[in-house]
């Protein structure tokens, strides 16, 4: 057994280190420390494994809103995908009122070479281009397919915190609606 040890690593004993963080934690330190952040994104983190993302779309139907997501990452990461929920009640074809998000890379298409950055890109895309073919809020998806103008009006009104179809939506506007022009 001693020979096995001596075979290759001569330098191994030279650098004794203490026990360090788990592989999931080190990977998150690396990912968050190198995140490409743009002015429309803000990561609020005290704990690397549980943090919030604030996204303010600069274009599209959701422009002018401030959307908050909760990221929960377990020690199984990156074998297991991060768990992401939208913290507000919003009118979106791919997000249900409880905040579940239909985004393929968060579930069936997750794989360990993906990362937090990829999930953030995925979320951004979902707000720029909602996908009517993967409905999670069926009413929103049907409206988007049938009457685009009606859909846009409903999105804008939901973002002001109105009730639609018996559901009270969160006011997500960052500033008075007027500063973003009229819709």
């Amino acid at each position, binding site marked *: 057994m001693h*020979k096995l040890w001596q075979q290759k690593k001569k330098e191994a004993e030279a650098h004794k280190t203490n026990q360090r963080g788990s592989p999931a934690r080190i990977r998150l330190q690396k990912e968050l420390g190198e995140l490409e952040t743009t002015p429309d994104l803000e990561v609020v983190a005290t704990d690397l494994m549980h943090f919030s993302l604030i996204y303010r779309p600069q274009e599209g139907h959701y422009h002018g809103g401030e959307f908050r997501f909760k990221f929960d990452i377990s020690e199984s990461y990156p074998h297991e995908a991060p768990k992401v929920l939208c913290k507000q009640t919003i009118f979106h074809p791919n997000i249900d009122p409880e905040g579940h998000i239909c985004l393929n890379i968060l579930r069936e298409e997750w794989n360990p070479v993906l990362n937090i950055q990829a999930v953030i890109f995925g979320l951004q895309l979902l707000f720029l281009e909602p996908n009517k073919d993967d409905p999670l809020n069926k009413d929103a998806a049907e409206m988007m397919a049938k009457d685009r103008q009606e859909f846009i009006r409903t999105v804008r009104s939901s973002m002001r915190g109105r009730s639609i179809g018996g559901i009270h939506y969160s006011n997500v506007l960052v500033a008075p609606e007027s500063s973003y022009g009229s819709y």
Partner: protein
Amino acid sequence: MSPTAAVEPTTTAALSSPQVPCIAGVDRYLKLRAAHVESFELADESGKTPQDLLDEAKILVIGAGGLGCEILKNLVMSGFKHIDVIDMDTIDISNLNRQFLFRKRDVGRPKAEVAAEFLRRRAPDVNITAHYKRIQDMSEEFYLGFTLIVCGLDSIDARRWINAFIYSLAEQHGFEGFKPIVDGGTEGFKGNVRVILPMQNACFECGLDLFSPKTTYPICTIANTPRLPEHCIEWASVLEWPRVFPDKKLDGDDPDHINWLVDQATARAAQFSISGITYSLTQGVVKNIIPAIASTNAIIAAVCTNEALKLVTSCNPYLDNYMFYSGDDGVYSHTFPYAQNESCMVCGHKRKSMAVAPDMALEELIELLKEDPSLQLKSPSLTVDSTNLYFQRPKALEERTRPNLEKKIGDLFASGSTLTVTDPVLPTSLQVTVVFA
């Protein structure tokens, strides 16, 4: 040993001597090999014979399930004399079809204890200790006491944990902490065995990408257009459970939890004319259980045992380092040296030691790291023991950790601490041990 014990043979010794004279042929084989081993490159320097090494080896078996039962039986029958087994589970009736050390009367009892009792009855001269515990609950000293570790686990999380832990033992304790791992795994007709020599070859984490993540279904399908019983079970577990019990974590081993899911999923399935919801399917979906096949376990356990025997006794060269068995489509098997992954979060890091004054500001320490020409760091982020020291990004974290830059390092961590440094130029991390001079 006390003098009386030496004179008066105990019942145990009396039973054992005539019972198993030639355990699995190993003792005769080792005697034959002993003559050749001297010239063999792996021969031990201590001058011990392969048989001595086998007699002295202390083996830890992790997992007493389908694979573990087979591994334990094989180790005992191969002549290993000191075996510990650790498993946190109790026996379920559904285990009896492939975990052959257990009987119906054992249902509900700890797997490790029942397995140890069975083996003690079969081989009373073998020293078997059972631990009905989680691997995370055992101390460093406990793990340091073994020669070699054999893993027969079905949980990727547990295998990742033990790999990282055993790796850090070798890193901290040098040869005393060097514990080779023989890791076996099966999935239906497929299986693999690897020999992990910490700090010398690829570790378990290096090959994490080989494991497909848990099977999941698009959330819109489970919410709106279920077609399979699995969709209804996921609807109940992913959407309904957190809605109805927002503060209760779903436990796949709690029958009350699974029964609740079965009821919800059955009602849901009826609405969509889907059939096939059962208790075992529900538990299988929740726990991501891939049905195990006893004979695949037997094949993989047999390879694990022989590799353990070769590593311990140096009687023959061992597996280098990955063996793959697939019975999915005909039978195919392949062995190759799995390469170390330079971006592995367990073994891919660089190491550095520094001796600096405790009144140095964190900012100066970071500058010192950046000046090291062998590293070429650009924007390092630092943590110690899961505490954030300084982060370059994101903005909120940078602002929160910025006040630490001016603080004295002696006020931030103790002498001898190891800092985890990440940087865009490093594939993983740099582990810096800082000693105060």
